[in-house]
Structures are given as C-alpha cells and as structure tokens.
C-alpha cells in the first residue's frame, strides 16, 4: 500500500512540474502522529487533493526560497481553510538531494523554536504539506530546508 502511495506521489509530482501554477495535481503529505521533542511530526503518507480544495482556501503568508549551502529555489505559501487549518504549499520547489533532509517552520533560518513539518522531503516539484496545530504562525514564519545529519542549511524562505 505504501509503495502504491509513493508511486502516486512521484507520478503526481512529475505532473505538477509541468505547469508552474497548476495546483490541480499536488500531493499532500499527511502526518500520522505528532511528537514533542522539540516539535516533530512523523513520516507522512500521501493523498491527492483537487484544485478546488485550494481554490476555497485563502493565502495567509508567502515567500520565495533563497539558497543556503545548496541551491534552493521555488515559492512557498501558507493556505488557511475555514476551519483554521493551515497548509504549506510548495510551488516549483527545487533543492539538491541530501541525507536526512527535513522541512521545518521556525522563527528564523537558525532554527529558533522550530517545528518539523516532514522528514520525507520531495526535493523537486509542487506539493502540499499540512501544518501541525502546534505551529505559531505569528512567530514561526520561516520555512527551512535542513540536513539534520550534517547540520547544513539547504535553503530557507521567509514568509510575509
């Protein structure tokens, strides 16, 4: 089942790369549980959301990636639904492959008060990740692509 989900994710990611703003075939990574040290979420599973889902959401924050030690590019937005659930949307995101990559939401790019969004990073494409309710979007407004094994900043985006 996991294999099918992964294959679906790859296929849909590839389709998502074809058009810059085509959000109709994005992959959403759903966390299965949350942990607390420091604010981590576990391995995601994948499912597809439709364009209409995003059309009904409003953008609350957005930013563009800048490179850290590795070349990183693309746009990232935070969408809010009517139930006050937030999603992190990557558009045309691209970074280098690396070991133990993580996506964090933090106060800044030095990882102050960070929350892990996922430890399964898709390094190329457009996709959606749910934001845990524990994230404080008034403070944690920097998306950080971080190599945990070697403590290397791949790239970051400051959201406004």
């Amino acid at each position, binding site marked *: 089942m996991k294999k099918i989900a992964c294959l679906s994710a790859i296929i849909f990611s590839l389709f998502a790369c074809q058009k810059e703003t085509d959000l109709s075939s994005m992959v959403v990574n759903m966390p299965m549980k949350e942990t607390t040290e*420091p604010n981590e979420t576990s391995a995601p599973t994948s499912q597809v959301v439709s364009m209409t889902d995003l059309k009904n959401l409003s953008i609350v924050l957005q930013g563009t990636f800048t490179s850290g*030690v590795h070349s990183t590019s693309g746009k990232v937005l935070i969408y809010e639904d009517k139930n006050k659930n937030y999603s992190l949307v990557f558009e045309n995101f691209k970074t280098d492959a690396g070991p133990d990559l993580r996506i964090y939401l933090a*106060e*800044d*790019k*030095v*990882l*102050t*008060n*960070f929350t892990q969004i996922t430890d399964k990073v898709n390094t190329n494409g457009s996709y959606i990740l749910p934001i845990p309710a524990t994230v404080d979007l008034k*403070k944690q407004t920097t998306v950080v692509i*971080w190599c*945990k*094994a*070697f*403590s*290397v900043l791949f790239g970051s985006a400051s959201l406004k």
Partner: protein
Amino acid sequence: MKKVSFLLAITLFISHLSFSQSKNQRYADLSIAAGSGFSPALSYNYNWGLGKGGKFKIGTGIRFTYFAGQHKDLITAPATLTSGEKGPQVLFKENILSNLDTLHVAKVGVGYINIPIHLQYSFSQKLEVGFNIDAIGISFGSKQSGTFYASDSRSLNKSTQSAKPTFFNALLVSDNDLGSLNSELYARYWVNDKIGIRAGLSFQFVEYTTDKVLTFENDRFRTKNLLPMIAISYKL
C-alpha cells in the same frame, strides 16, 4: 588461519607484557593545572613497557579531573556545526563562524572521571616525556544559568538559559568529542625510586548541555582550556 595468527599474536603480546614487569610502571598522580581556570586531577595509572628496553610505554588507568572557571564562554560544540563535517577530517577544517553561538556562564564547575590512554618515552631511568588523553567516562556537576548569545536569533539572543555538564564523555577526534576530556603533554623527572615530578600543559574540553534545544538544533556547548600543569607521581 587468520584467527590462529591473531590469537597467537595476542598471546605473544600478553606474555611479553607479563614477562616485562620491571619495564612497567604503576603509579598514582596528583596534578594541578591553573590559568584560565583551576583544575586538579587525581589518577591511577599503569604503563606497559614495549620492546627490549621498555623505553616506549603505553598505558591506561582512571583519572578524576575537576575543572572550575569563572565567566566562561561556552561555544557551539558539535563538529557538524563547527566544521560542517563528521569524522577525523574535522581536525583540518576551519570553523564555520556563522554556525557558532555562545552561552556565557558566570561559573563553571565540572567533575569528570575518565579512562585515559598514555603514551610515554623514557630517555633514562629518571627522565621521560609523555602524552595522555581521556578516552571515555562520565561527568557531573551542578546546573548553571547563563546568557545565550545568538545574533541571528531575535528571540533567543541574550536570553537566559540553563545547562548542566554533558553526562557521557567520549574521545572521537577534535570537535567530534563528546563531553569533558582532559589531555596532558608533559615531562617527568623521577626524584627517587618512588617520587616523580611532572610539568607540562593540560588541554581540557569542558562541555555543558542546555535544558532546551537552541539555535541550529543544538544543545551542546563547550569551552576549551589550555593550562600550565604541575604534578607529583608516586610509584605503587
């Protein structure tokens, strides 16, 4: 066949050591190092003489070191942050200054018990030079509060943080090391059959772990101290 050769080599080495008791050394040692801190150390040591004359010795033992210092800057410790690398190559890497943050504590007090490794060369019955370094052990000490300086973190910069000595110590080459470790480079003169005096330098890593993870996912901070040292040894 390889196993037999290996076992034979081990047997020969052990029998060599046991038949060369006179070349071996067993002694207690009390050292005092002072400078950027104050650090007494008490140890029990056993060195085995190698070769015909036993001039070259290797050894081990157990050492208790206490380090006390005031107004110390504890700097980001993990090698992945200081050098961007893991492994022995960190010895040759420049520090990545942008990754380094500082925890300033008014008072440092760490006791640590480690198993050291000794290497020593005897020029004569009286004079020898040597080097030793802690390999593995544990640390203890009270919790300290300090001011954390991280200019890139608006909310954590100049915040008060508490930290206690990192419990587990391990020698893993340069900034890969964990915890608190003492090493000494020295010359020793045996005044008589029992008593020797040593002088040299003591280099100590003293490490604290903060209660919470701060910048760069890091909670380990250390101070490195090079101190002049004198000691007295007593053959047992």
